[in-house]
Each structure stands twice: as structure tokens, then as C-alpha cells.
């Protein structure tokens, strides 16, 4: 009973929210989507390649997409029109600069 309670407490994490940022995994690649209709330029920066900016592609009037390898975990953020932008991501950690950074893990 106690074990179930521990399970339940930890499992009661609700991740509802707006559809502003989501993933689609396809074998060893993950497509990451960001809804930013007002943005002119969106860059994706991750620990996979030393945070070199990669230009995201606009796929419709609201959504930007980037495809990246998905075999290992990585940290990432965006640069939207010249400013650092952190989407509402599920996993994150402190960035030691007063903000946070998103984490992608393949198992999720």
C-alpha cells in the first residue's frame, strides 16, 4: 500500500498545457516544433554541437520545425529574433545564468 502511495505521489505530475512546443520522434531523429507565429527568425541551439545556431524552418503560419538526432540526451534553447527563448518544455534545469534550459531525453 505504502509503495503504491509513493508511486502515486510521484506519478501525479500533470503536464497539461498549451500546444506551443512539442516533439515527434521518428527512429533516430526527433522533430521539434515551436509555435511562434510572430517570429521572423528562429534558431535552435543545442549541446549536440556546442550550441551552434541552426535555423528552424517555418512549416506554416504559426509553427517552426527543426530535426535533430535523437539517440542521446541533449540540452537546448531557441533564439527568436535575436533573443534567447525558452519554450515550455517538460524537462529542464537551471542554466547557472539566472534562467533555465530545456532537456531532451530519447526515452521520453
Amino acid at each position, binding site marked *: 500500500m*505504502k509503495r503504491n502511495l509513493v508511486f502515486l*505521489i510521484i506519478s501525479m*505530475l500533470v*503536464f*497539461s498545457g498549451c500546444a506551443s512546443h512539442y516533439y515527434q520522434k521518428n527512429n533516430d531523429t526527433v522533430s521539434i516544433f515551436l509555435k511562434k507565429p510572430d517570429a521572423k527568425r528562429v534558431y535552435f541551439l543545442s549541446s549536440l554541437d556546442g550550441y551552434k545556431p541552426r535555423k528552424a524552418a517555418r512549416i506554416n503560419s504559426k509553427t517552426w520545425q527543426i530535426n535533430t538526432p535523437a539517440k542521446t540526451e541533449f540540452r537546448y534553447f531557441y533564439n527568436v529574433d535575436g533573443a534567447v527563448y525558452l519554450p515550455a518544455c517538460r524537462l529542464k534545469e537551471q542554466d547557472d545564468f*539566472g534562467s533555465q534550459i530545456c532537456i531532451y531525453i530519447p526515452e521520453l
Partner: protein
Amino acid sequence: MKKIFIICMAIFFCAGVASADPVEQGLPETADEKVINSTRQMVNQGFNTENVIDMTRQMLANNFKQQQILQAHAILMNARQQGLQTESIMNKAQEGLAKQVQARAVVHAMEQVRSRQAFASKQAKAITNDKAKINQMATILAGSMAAGMNHEDAERIMQALHERTRNMTRAHAEDLAMQTLMTTRMIARLGIQSQSVGDSVCRALQQGYSVQEMNRMRNTIMANARGQNSDFGQHGGQSAMGGMGDHGGDSGDGMGGGSGGGGDGMGGGHM
């Protein structure tokens, strides 16, 4: 005679190119002797040449002072000498440069990462003396701390682990430690407050959770997270979580942090 002269010149030229210092070649002319020597020292210590030169070049381009670059180098070299993982420290520097954070904030953040690694390494040594496993556990525990676990709660978990594994074989103790730390990190990354993470994991250990149960707990949490609406956003249902809280609400707006950024594209100065 002319042919011999040309051949000799060609040999000298090739020898010159072959012995060119990659550090001097890779750094801009603005790099002074101390920075060049320090970079060279890092390469000699075994750091990846390209990564070190790239990091140093970016620091110079972002107007880091000589002292700040030397400090950054020293943090990495000290970490290596202490037997710590340096990849996460280097990543932190790269992140700070990409976010165009102030130089002193980058150096400070690198030291924070090193400090977490050192603390986590010390904790891991209480469980195992296998160097590879120490590094692995330290990286995972340091990751939990980066996600918000404080020293006190990290120590609590390690203490609970130590007690739980007291009568286990080394291999079994290592397995349980690994699963426990991975689960801890997962929960911390989901935004649960440090004390709540500590309470839950310690409770699980005190109740005798096995390696498989700890693994299952983490998988269940991940499955729940996957099975939620694929959208991310605010953590809800906090009142239903009892004592577990989480980080404050996540705004979808730019979080700026210490970066400047401005102008078009990726340009813009740094603060």
C-alpha cells in the same frame, strides 16, 4: 644546382607547415602570449584541441579579458586534475557564449558546474571505488543538482543509499545506486522541489525498493509523462500532489536570462 635549391626550399617549406602550432594557428592575432600558452597547456593535458581552440576563440571574440580566459582554462584544468568529468564544464562555457552572457557569469557558471561535479564525485565515492562508475554516478547526481536538488537533499539521498546498500555486494550496491540516482534526476528535472524529491526517494529506499522497483518507478513516471497530452506547459494539479511542489509556473515567454541579443538574426552585442 637550381633544382637542388628548389627541392631544399620545398623540404623546408613542408617541414615548416608540418610543425606549425595548431594553437597559434587557430587563435586570432589578438590572443596574447599568456592565453596562447594556457591554451597550449590544455591541449598538452589532453583536452580536445579543436574544442579548446574554438572555446578560446569565441571568448576572445566576445571580449573576455585575459584574466577571465585564464580563469576558464584553470577551472577546466583543475577539474581534469581532480579526475572530474570536464565535458559538462566545457558545455556550460559554450552555452554561456551562445547565450551571449557576461564573461564573468560564464566563468562563474563553469565553476558552479565544477563544484557540483566535485561534490557529486565525493558522494559517489561512498558507494563505489570503480572510477568509471564514480564518474557516471557523479554526472547523474550533478544533473539532479542542476535540475534543482540542493546539497542537503542530495546528501540525504546518498546517506539513505549508503544505509540501504550496507550489506549488499558491491555490484548490487552500484546497480541500486545507479537506478536511484537516475530516478532522482528524472523527478528533479520534472520540476519537483528538492525536499519533495529527497522525501520520496528516501522513502522508497527505506521501504526497501529493489533495483527493478526503482527502475520501474522511473519508467512509470516517464510513461506518464509521455502519455500526457503531447503539449507542454504549466504544471497543474499541484494541490493534488500533497507535499510535492514544483518550480514556479513556466511562462512561454522569452526568459532572457543574462543574454543581450539584439539586432538582426544572431547578431547583437553582449552585455
